[in-house]
């Protein structure tokens, strides 16, 4: 069933989604991203994760590096979402078409997310290999893929929001990496020590709960806890809402 047969609103999200998704493939970005993603995922899994030496039929060494891979690769996908439109001036065209702000933000985000999920799906040879070599728990692997997708979505939503603040894609990239780094490590001593030196302990605890790693790790163990799913979903929703507000606010400035 096509979007057009449902409602004109859904249809606009679909149209923006399609244009944005194709835009990734209009430049070498898509291919470079996929190749680098797969190569790095492979290198990290085999050399740093000791995929073969561990002699265990699971994909833990593969998934465990995803937060770090995403930290540098996902901002490269999200940086163009809004900054490029500002730079090219097409934002003036885009925002004067009869589209609601929510649909515009959602269509762009979903295109970037679908692209990152496509890249993730292309790692299927790892899954085939582990099934060929042993008898892994495929439920755990499926949960890990789900967790990884959600985490990529959270990184992308943050990146999309930051991209809306600037017309410089490099600035968007660097800021997104920095902010995502804090989110990734929020539960670890590196970040907590920084805050505990001066902030009240309730605040430090709150910051700790925003760490991506613990939430991802618990999904990765095969435990699909609604709280973890809800965590990533809220990061996405909050970031995208802020994204829409930032664009609206810049109209009034």
């Amino acid at each position, binding site marked *: 069933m096509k979007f057009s047969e449902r409602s004109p609103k859904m*249809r606009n999200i679909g149209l923006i989604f399609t244009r944005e998704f194709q*835009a990734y493939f209009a430049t070498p970005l898509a291919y470079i991203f996929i190749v680098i993603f797969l190569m790095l995922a492979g290198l990290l899994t085999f050399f740093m994760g000791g995929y073969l030496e561990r002699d265990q039929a699971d994909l833990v060494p593969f998934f465990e590096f995803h937060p770090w891979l995403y930290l540098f690769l996902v901002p490269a996908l999200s940086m163009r979402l809004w900054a490029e439109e500002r730079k*090219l001036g097409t934002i*003036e*065209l885009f*925002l*004067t078409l*009869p589209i609601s702000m929510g649909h515009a933000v959602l269509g762009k985000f979903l295109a970037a997310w679908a692209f990152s999920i496509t890249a993730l799906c292309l790692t299927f040879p790892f899954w085939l290999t582990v099934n060929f070599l042993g008898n892994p728990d495929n439920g755990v692997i499926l949960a890990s893929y789900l967790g990884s997708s959600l985490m990529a979505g959270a990184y992308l939503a943050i990146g999309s929001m930051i991209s809306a603040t600037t017309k410089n894609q490099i600035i968007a990239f660097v800021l997104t990496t920095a902010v995502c780094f804090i989110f990734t490590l929020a539960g670890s001593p590196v970040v907590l020590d920084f805050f505990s030196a001066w902030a009240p302990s309730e605040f430090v605890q709150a910051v700790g709960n925003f760490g991506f790693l613990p939430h991802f790790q618990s999904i990765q163990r095969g435990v699909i806890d609604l709280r973890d799913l809800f965590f990533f979903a809220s990061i996405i929703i909050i970031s995208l809402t802020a994204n829409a507000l930032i664009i609206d606010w810049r*109209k009034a400035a």
Partner: protein
Amino acid sequence: MTETLKIDKLTKRFGPKTVVDNVTFVANKGEVLGFLGPNGAGKSTTMKMVVGFLSPTSGTASVCGHDIIENPLEVKRAVGYLPEGAPAYPDMTPHSFLKFIASIRGFRGSEKVDRVENAINITRIEDVSRQPIETLSKGYKRRVGLAQSLIHDPEVLILDEPTDGLDPNQKQVVRDLIRSMATEKCIVISTHILEEVDAVCTRAMIIASGKVVADGSPEELKSQSGAGDLDEVFRKVTKNA
């Protein structure tokens, strides 16, 4: 009868600077309104507020009875807009770009195909319609932008410097196009090229420092100044701005 385009005390301030200051006017079908003024006079800002790209600090406007603040989507449906510099997605071809715009504007199937084809024909971009927009000359890019603004046959057409930077032949193409649509639409064009007003406009409005300083048919403006020359009028009313 509702006015096609009604601007009501529209004001825009950027920080302490008032860029558009209490602008009020009405324009109707059949009018080609030339928005004249020195660079930075507030022409583009006024247009951007009407099409919903900027929010006014105070005042409002309405297009075909739809208020720009209360009903921005209806305004966007009724207006065709060519932003300054005619931005378009460089990786797309004019054909795919126009198809995208037509879809967003709600056209489907054979109607969409017809709309796209018609826009390509009237702006005379058939020759380049299948090559990426980034490879096109300025003149062609401008016409792609025009095609985009015409695809839904809007009642109100707002063109920000449609002929700026074009060679004389390209200017002629764009002006002929504007003239051919003049009777059935309300067209607002901004320009700082005075010959343009003589060439296509039925009414000229000079804006300086965000205020309307002259408004009338090109002939009226000329006779007012006694100079018989729009250049003279322009210099006279914008001198102190």
